[in-house]
């Protein structure tokens, strides 16, 4: 059997195993579904009245940011999953089997992508309830969801690396989540990057979360309330769709190889 088909078969076996885990233990889905709902409601109704002059418009603006944030958090679930497998000795067993080296990671990130897709569905419904609409074309909407899933997948590989570096679930609990907050808040997910002080503004402009949030707002045709207009003339702000795709691919190009390299050497305990 060729290396590719063997790798695909091994990956699909591991994906199946991970999805069976989700099916048998549905509380694993809580984080992926309840958290985004919570964020939609919190931002929409707690901050909604204070940010900008039009709460309805802010809620619609908000959805792109919450989409981007939620798929970014997918990386934390991958981190936890890898750390748990490592801690239980499952990774040792996999590594002692004659299976392809990337299959455990590919199977994990693929399964987490499926969970992430479910989260997007739940969130979209929740968004529709608070007044968000898809106002763009069908193809633009498809592209928006594709970008979100690509970003989710890319972040999942970062999470896989972090999970193996953490070594156990306890460390992974913090290591997986802590960097999510600056990553998702130093962006245009909830506010305008323009209001941030100099260096932070540069980071926010180039942050893939900003690109993804802006890209899906554009593609879904969600208007920005006056105060949150993207007046930035930075290159990424002008090319959010392109930059979101390029940055996702760059994340994958960096983290997929180092995650696989880490997997080859990783030791439980």
């Amino acid at each position, binding site marked *: 059997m060729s290396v590719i088909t063997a790798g695909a078969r091994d990956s699909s076996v591991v994906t199946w*195993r991970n999805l069976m*885990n989700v099916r*048998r*233990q549905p509380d694993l889905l809580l984080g992926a579904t309840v958290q985004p709902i919570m964020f939609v409601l919190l931002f929409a109704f707690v901050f909604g009245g204070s940010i900008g002059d039009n709460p309805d418009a802010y809620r619609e603006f908000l959805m792109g940011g919450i989409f981007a944030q939620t798929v970014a958090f997918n990386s934390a679930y991958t981190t936890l999953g890898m750390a748990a497998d490592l801690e239980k000795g499952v990774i*040792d067993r996999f*590594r002692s*089997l*004659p299976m392809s080296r990337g299959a455990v990671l590919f199977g994990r990130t693929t399964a987490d992508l499926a969970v992430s897709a479910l989260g997007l569905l739940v969130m979209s419904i929740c968004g529709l309830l608070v007044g968000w609409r898809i106002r763009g074309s069908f193809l633009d909407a498809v592209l928006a969801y594709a970008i979100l899933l690509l970003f989710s997948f890319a972040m999942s590989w970062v999470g896989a690396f972090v999970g193996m570096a953490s070594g156990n679930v306890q460390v992974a609990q913090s290591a997986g989540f802590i960097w999510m907050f600056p990553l998702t808040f130093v962006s245009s997910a909830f506010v305008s990057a323009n209001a941030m002080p100099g260096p932070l503004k540069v980071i926010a402009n180039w942050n893939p979360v900003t690109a993804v949030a802006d890209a899906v707002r554009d593609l879904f045709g969600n208007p920005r309330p006056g105060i949150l207009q993207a007046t930035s003339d930075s290159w990424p702000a002008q090319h959010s769709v392109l930059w979101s795709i390029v940055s996702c691919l760059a994340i994958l190009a960096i983290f997929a190889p180092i995650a696989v390299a880490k997997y080859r050497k990783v*030791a439980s305990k």
Partner: protein
Amino acid sequence: MPPSASQVAVHAEALVKTYGSTRALDGVDLEIRSGTVLGLLGPNGAGKTTTVRILTTLLKPDSGRAFVAGHDVLADPAAVRRSIGLSGQYAAVDENLTGYENLYMVGRLYGMSRSDSGARARALLDRFRLKDAAERPAKTYSGGMRRRLDLAGALVAEPTVVVLDEPTTGLDPRGRLDTWEVIGELVADGATVLLTTQYLEEADQLADNILVIDHGKVIAGGTPDQLKNGVGGERIEVVVGEAGEVEKARQILFSLGSGEPTVDDHQRRVSVKVDTGPKALVEALRRLDQEGISILDVALHRPTLDDVFLSLTGHAAEEAVEPEPKGRKSKKGAS
């Protein structure tokens, strides 16, 4: 070159592995003949698991070389993985998958077809007495059942060499007996097994050859009998009825034995090495009786692996308290 794979299943030379300034392995050699069981015995941190990890390609040694089923672990790890089955220290079963699904998955990952994987999973569940639990998620299994499932996982691809890393650590006595039985069957079927353990009794029961390892070095090797004979002599062991009698019993045994008696005040147990076996025992009983010492238990036995371990390392094996002394005692009496 290593000897041919048909006779020697595992061959390792001068394995060294350091972590910072700690030499986890400091030049370990080992050899396992096909169809035999090698027990790798040593306290926690002795280097057992590091050895296993190197032989199963999970870890690269700093120096030295090793061949498993004729394949070089460094040059051709993929071939080694195809030839081995590993059951680790903790049962690496997926709790949310059923017993059947766990084994089916392993079969698929060895590259077996769907139907072969399924058939093999069924056969192993049967053999490991898990048939009734086959369709239940593994989280409902007892500790012993999980271990059996994990062992079954190591056998899915009918590997040339089976590596069992502390297969009974953390099991209750019932689970341990259960697991021994399964390993015993495996051995009877002619498998080549590398077994690490900190339980001396386990090595004694299951292994053809034993390698004692401490601080990353092999400090003794041979069959259980050879090791015991190496310590030499038999021991008289007496348990007296009252705490006040321990010292007197110690004096009597000291005068009969060759060497200082060991005393366990808590259990009121005194034991000493003797050269004249039964004669010394008769004499000891006569004199203990003369002194009016109440005797709860008395035995003459050959050295146990505990004694071997003590004399080799100067310290008892980690788990001196288990398995229960009582079970061990009756076995000693029989040997």
